[in-house]
C-alpha cells in the first residue's frame, strides 16, 4: 500500500439473513490479514465489524458494511436502512437491548454490541435518525494493542 492510497471493500447485508451473518466481517478480516495489519489490530477490527454487521441483520431491514484500509488505520463504516435508534445514549449503555427473544436464543441481543464497538475502536461515531437509519463509523489505528 503506498502512502496516500487506500484499499476498499464493501458488502451489502440483508436484514434477518442469519445464515450469512458475519460473512462480510470474515472477508474483511481475511483482507486485513493479507495486507499484513498487526494481528491484535485485526482482531479488534474483526470484533467491532462483526458486532455492527450483526446489528444490521438483527435490527435493520438491510444495510452495508464497508472497510477502507489506509497505511496507518482502518475505517469501518456500517450503514443501515432503519428503523433508526430513538435514544442513542440508552443504546450505548451495557445491557440495554431491544432484540427480540429469538435473537437472544441465537446468542445475541445482550446489549453489549455498541459498547463493545466503542471499546474495540480508537474513534467511534454513531448517527441515527428514526425512520431513516443508522450510520456507524469506527476508526482503528494500526498499532498493536490487545484487548
Amino acid at each position, binding site marked *: 500500500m503506498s502512502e496516500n492510497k487506500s484499499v476498499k471493500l464493501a458488502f451489502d447485508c440483508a436484514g434477518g439473513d442469519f445464515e450469512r*451473518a458475519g460473512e462480510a*466481517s470474515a472477508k474483511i478480516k481475511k483482507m486485513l490479514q493479507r495486507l499484513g495489519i498487526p494481528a491484535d489490530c485485526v*482482531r479488534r477490527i474483526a470484533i467491532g465489524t*462483526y458486532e455492527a454487521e450483526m446489528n444490521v441483520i438483527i435490527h435493520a431491514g438491510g444495510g452495508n458494511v464497508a472497510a477502507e484500509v489506509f497505511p496507518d488505520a482502518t475505517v469501518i463504516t456500517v450503514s443501515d436502512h432503519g428503523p433508526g435508534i430513538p435514544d442513542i445514549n440508552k443504546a450505548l449503555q451495557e445491557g440495554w437491548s431491544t432484540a427480540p427473544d429469538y435473537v437472544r436464543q441465537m*446468542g445475541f441481543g*445482550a446489549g453489549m454490541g455498541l459498547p463493545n464497538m466503542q*471499546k474495540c475502536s480508537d474513534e467511534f461515531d454513531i448517527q441515527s435518525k428514526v425512520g431513516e437509519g443508522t450510520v456507524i463509523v469506527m476508526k482503528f489505528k494500526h498499532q498493536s494493542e490487545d484487548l
Partner: protein
Amino acid sequence: MNLKDVQRLLDAKVLAGEQYLDRQIETCCGSDMMSDVLAFTKRNTLLCTGLTNMQVVRTADMTELGAIVFVRSKTPDSEIVEAAAEDMLPVLVTEYTMFEACGILYGAGISGCSKRGKKK
C-alpha cells in the same frame, strides 16, 4: 495445558481439527451468549457452549478462539463442523454439562477470562 489434555479431561470426541490438538489453552469461557464471548474473551480462549448454530463458529473466527467444546453431547450440523475445520478451529463434544465441563477445566488449572478469574 493443550487440547489433548482437554479432550482427556472431558472424555470428549473430536469432530474437527484433530491436527491442532497440540494447541495450548490458558483461558476458558462457558457461555451460550455470543455477545459475551465477543466482549470478554481473549485470543486462544477455549469456549464451552451448548449453542450449536453457525454464529458460534463465526464468533470464534472473529475473536480467534482456540477451540470449541459443545457440552451435554450437543452436536452441530456437518456444515458447522466443516466451517470450523476451514477456520482451523478444533471442535470437541463432551457428555458433561456446561457446569461440569467448566468446573473440571478450572480445577485442572485453566483460568477464566476476567482479572478475578485468573488462576494464581
